């Protein structure tokens, strides 16, 4: 008992007080800062990098840093608020800047704020995720990030959920289970795509064993880029969306 108390006292407070204004170390590779110019787009392993004009699609980008090392016009900054409600806004060019992006990328809907603003329960579905995003989503609920304080939680049953969070490139073998799970969530419900794989197929986009028809059938509400998605990216994305 005494030992347990000692451990508790020794740990002190672990939570990040102000999640919205938290910062990540400079080494983190996040929001791309682009200067118009040349760059060999064939170096990008996922085809996120395009030229004329020079752009990076954060929905495809794995933030591997190959382009920033090869080309002086690209720098991956430590900006981590990457989420957007609009797929097209994820494409970053020399005209984009982080501050404007964070203010405009998420379209706030009154109905969403009213329904989910105080409590949002999510069912996560890993559709061939590599366990990277899954580990980071688990970390969202640990003592550091403590997402539960905002009323956001992952729940076991889709019946208890207000929406689903999809990770992974959507394998053929998960098609049935994913749709089943989505249909089990009561209305109104939201769909969140988490990570490059879910948003675009990412590094697996050319695989023949994927089936991404689900995304054509059902509307997507929020895109959260990353590879894997950092807990701060995830929590801030959701907070901006429901508040």
């Amino acid at each position, binding site marked *: 008992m005494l*030992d*347990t108390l*000692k*451990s508790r006292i*020794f*740990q002190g407070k*672990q939570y990040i007080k102000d999640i919205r204004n938290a910062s*990540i*170390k400079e*080494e*983190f*590779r996040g929001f791309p800062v682009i200067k118009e110019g040349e760059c060999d787009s064939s170096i990008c*392993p*996922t085809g996120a990098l395009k030229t004329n004009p020079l752009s990076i699609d954060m929905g495809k980008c*794995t*933030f*591997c*840093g*190959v382009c920033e*090392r090869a080309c002086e016009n690209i720098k*991956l900054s430590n900006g981590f608020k990457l989420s957007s409600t609009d797929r097209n806004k994820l494409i970053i060019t020399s005209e984009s800047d982080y501050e404007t992006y964070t203010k405009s990328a998420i379209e706030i809907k009154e109905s969403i704020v009213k329904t989910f603003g105080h409590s949002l329960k999510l*069912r*996560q*579905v*890993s*559709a*061939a*995720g*590599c*366990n*990277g*995003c*899954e*580990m*980071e989503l*688990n*970390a969202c609920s*640990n*003592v*550091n990030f403590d997402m539960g304080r905002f009323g956001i939680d*992952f729940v*076991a049953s889709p019946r208890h959920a207000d929406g689903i969070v999809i990770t*992974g490139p959507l*394998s053929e*073998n*998960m098609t*049935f*289970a994913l749709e089943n*799970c989505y249909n089990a969530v009561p209305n109104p419900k939201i769909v969140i795509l988490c990570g490059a*794989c879910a948003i675009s197929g*990412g*590094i*697996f986009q*050319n*695989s*023949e*064993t*994927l089936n991404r028809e689900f995304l054509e059938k059902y509307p997507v509400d929020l895109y959260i880029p990353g*590879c894997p998605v*950092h807990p701060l990216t995830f929590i801030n994305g959701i907070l901006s969306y429901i508040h």
Partner: protein
Amino acid sequence: MLKIKNNTKININEIPILQIKDFREEIISLNFRPIGFFGKSSENDSVRLFAVLADDKAGDIYISSTKFSADEKSYECLTKEIPAFHIFEREFYEQFGVEPLNHPWLKPVRINQDKYEFFEMTGEEVHQVAVGPIHAGVIEPGHFRFMCNGETVYHLEIMLGYQHRGIEELMLISPSNQLAESICGDSVIAYNTAYSQIMEILQDVTISDRAQLIRKAALEMERMAIHIGDLGAIAGDIAYLMGASVFGATRTLVINTMLEFCGSRFGRGLICTGGVNYDFTEEKLNQALKTFEKVIKDVERMVNTMLKSSTVMSRLEKTGTISMERAKEAGLVGMAARAAGVELDSRFDFPDKWMSELKIEKKKFKATGDVNARFKLRYKEILQSYSMIKKIFAKLQECKNQDLFTSASNNLSQNSLAISIVEGWRGEVVHIAMTDGNGNLSRYKIKDPSFNNWYGLALAVRNNGVSDFPLCNKSFNLSYSGNDL
């Protein structure tokens, strides 16, 4: 059979092609552990079957092959003689349609989950519990079916393949470090090291000592981080929330240190073919050592508090036990095998030059094969990784001015087979690559330790309460994506 070493290549034409009868006999008489058993399409619709065996005591790898012409569609299975082949033969059958006759259980590995009829027990008191593919928590998908008598599990059947993304095929079309990192996202360093080593062997590149040491340090950091996280997960599953919180927070310190080194909490982007992309500077090394010292103190304190608590011990001890004989027979590898007393650790069995240079030695462990053993072994391995990291960091200071990256031509040697085994935190990650006459990759075979160990989990839960399953599962913490590829 041809004898080779880890991290080497050979000309494919040197690999003997035996008659299937001799091939079988040789494998059975050698009786070494299978680490690769896979087919490759050959001319005129024939299939060449390769067997790669590990002699762990001598640190040797044996390789041989046989050929099935288009109309030869079966052979006498090896599983009956050496049970560890069971999963390999199932995979070979699924990929190439050559049936291992008299295989005890030829169920699918990665496809056709919906067509498979599960094993069923009948009787008034027997009932089934079906779980998945989507589980209660935020984890990867897989289907578990328990045959229970009341609370007791008679038998667990595991069906995987939901994560199948066609990695082995993608590796041929667009091989990259980024793809290697995404095969199994909790073992980024292990997978990317194995892939990079394969490519370096095929390109005849030797990377600098500094780059080698950075990779090695990162691998131990990965082991430390995941093991600490798993201690927390085990604590969480027995509702010891203090443990879950403390281990969760200490794991954060380790992975955040990784982020400071290379920009990613799991070490993505750190390793590339030819070396590493980011340097471990002196300032960062010193900072990391300070952090790790605190981490180890926290972990030690919490583990000792937990192990002194009788309520904790009553959940860990004698739960999910697997005996050494069973572990050996089923072909378990890595941490799960070591916890059952099977001393397999490719860091020591197939050592690189650093193991002797840094005087890193195998530690004895009192294996009991239960959750308790897997808990304690994780703790011991955390301590061992910490001591390895200190030695590696010290060595890094000695080779300061070396290049991080060694460039090479992108041309791969022709008609070659290269093999690389890396001990990830779960166990051996085996990558085998073959090239054709033009120097293009023609086959890329990956074996995750989970491929061997899933069956071990099924054996471990027999005669345990079904409510102890999550605990048993966490104590193994196997990979779905690494298995499903």
